């Protein structure tokens, strides 16, 4: 390896636990511990713990922090209440994604953004360049580690470590409080389709918090989980992954993310392009009918002719099927379309299906 990989504060913990490490966008990250399918099922049935400290954090503070946050994102920041979080898009003027992010409203004059690891520097530059308001933008990634506790037993596990009543934090809300004896931001968010919390804390506390969570979750069979399971979990729940479902050449309307675009909220970067756009393609789910797995980048055929491409594809451990997401012409994007996916030079049958592939029972 020529350039040194970036490491989270939990790197030694992962290595000591025997995790398999990979280069994930310049980060030395655990891809799996006990096994991808085992970790996946543990999150669906009990509770899993993820180190997601590679994710970036950006803070916007000042009298006009809300105006800047609203101007650079697609969703309505003005509608957020203090303690509420929101999934949103950060767009270029041409409507393509800079990134997909979570916006947390900490106070009327303070917003906390969680952004993708590989995009964080780019996001920061983008937001800073757009700052014509009375507020400051801080690249805060070095001040935060992030741990995700996910699964039906996640809240019970986390509750042992904090006096903050977690059941009272609604889905996509958060609270600041003590967690495992250290100050933390506790958000009821996640990237797995399960209930759970994401805990932001100072990097120097990450190991203590990790160990405390593993101990608290032991009666429930908690397992550390890697990025492999994180990917299959998010895919089953049809959550987008930057560089796959979304990119600088894909708009939210194409990505089936119209719900995070609030054209009526006033001006924001990318709005004009979205108003003018008549999408011609759409993100759609598929299941393989023939033998094989349609993976990212594979060509999709309609009546034998190139019609789109796969953005993500994998065996689904929960459903025991081979699933995936692909772009297809808008008029052919309804469930029930017979498609073919070119897998190593062979056209293999598949069919478009409703998404998400998996939805947890409430």
């Amino acid at each position, binding site marked *: 390896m020529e350039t040194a990989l970036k490491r989270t504060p939990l790197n030694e913990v992962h290595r000591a636990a025997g995790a398999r490490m990979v280069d994930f966008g310049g980060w030395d990250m655990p*891809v*799996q511990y006990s*096994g*991808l*399918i085992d970790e996946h099922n543990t999150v669906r049935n009990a509770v899993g713990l993820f180190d997601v400290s590679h994710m970036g954090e950006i803070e916007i503070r000042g009298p006009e922090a809300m105006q800047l946050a609203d101007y650079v994102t697609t969703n309505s920041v003005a509608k957020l209440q203090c303690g509420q979080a929101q999934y949103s898009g950060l767009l270029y003027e041409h409507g393509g994604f800079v990134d997909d992010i979570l916006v947390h409203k900490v106070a009327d004059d303070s917003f906390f953004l969680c952004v993708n690891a590989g995009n964080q520097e780019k996001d920061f530059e983008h937001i800073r360049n757009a700052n014509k308001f009375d507020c400051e933008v801080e690249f805060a990634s070095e001040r935060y580690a992030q741990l995700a506790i996910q699964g039906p037993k996640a809240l019970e596990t986390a509750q042992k470590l904090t006096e903050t009543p977690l059941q009272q934090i609604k889905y996509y809300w958060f609270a600041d409080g003590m967690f495992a004896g250290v100050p933390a931001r506790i958000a009821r968010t996640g990237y797995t389709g399960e209930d759970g919390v994401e805990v932001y804390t100072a990097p120097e506390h990450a190991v203590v918090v990790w160990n405390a969570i593993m101990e608290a979750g032991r009666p429930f069979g908690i397992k550390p989980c890697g990025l*492999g399971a994180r990917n299959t979990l998010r895919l089953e729940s049809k959550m987008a992954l930057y560089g796959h479902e979304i990119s600088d050449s894909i708009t939210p309307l194409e990505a089936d993310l119209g719900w995070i675009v609030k054209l009526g909220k006033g001006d924001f970067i990318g709005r004009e392009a979205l108003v003018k756009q008549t999408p011609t393609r759409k993100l759609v789910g598929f299941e393989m009918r023939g033998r094989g*797995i349609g993976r990212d980048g594979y060509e999709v055929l309609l009546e034998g002719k190139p019609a789109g491409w796969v953005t993500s594809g994998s*065996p689904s*451990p929960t459903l025991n099927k081979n699933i995936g997401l692909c772009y297809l012409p808008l008029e052919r994007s309804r469930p029930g379309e017979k498609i073919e996916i070119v897998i*190593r030079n062979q056209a293999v049958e598949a069919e478009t299906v409703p998404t998400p592939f998996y939805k947890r029972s409430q």
Partner: protein
Amino acid sequence: MNYPENFRYTKEHEWVSLTGDMATIGITFHAQEELGDIVYVDVPKAGTKVSKGSTFGSVESVKAVSDIYAPVSGEVTEANAILASAPEKLNADPHESAWLIKVRVKDAAEFNNLMTASEYQTYVGAEH
């Protein structure tokens, strides 16, 4: 992990054992560990010719698909039927019951030129 002394190994993480002119070919413990949960194994039928260094099949895990390269040249005499219905066996027992194919080799020298168990373990260790 125990890498049998009587096997020879490739840089692409296949193993081969030889009895007379009959070679048995598989992928190493290290290879299956790198791949993770294996879901498909594609290997050629009996009668297919394979040549050293060329891809003869693929192993697919939840994460990725990976080509398998022939460590020696020859003709396939048998493909392991277990793997079609139970590909996960390749994770559990890669050096024994989950062998991939048996090949009648043309040139036993090809076998001797491959890495020994200790050479392979050094090679795998150095990869990290």
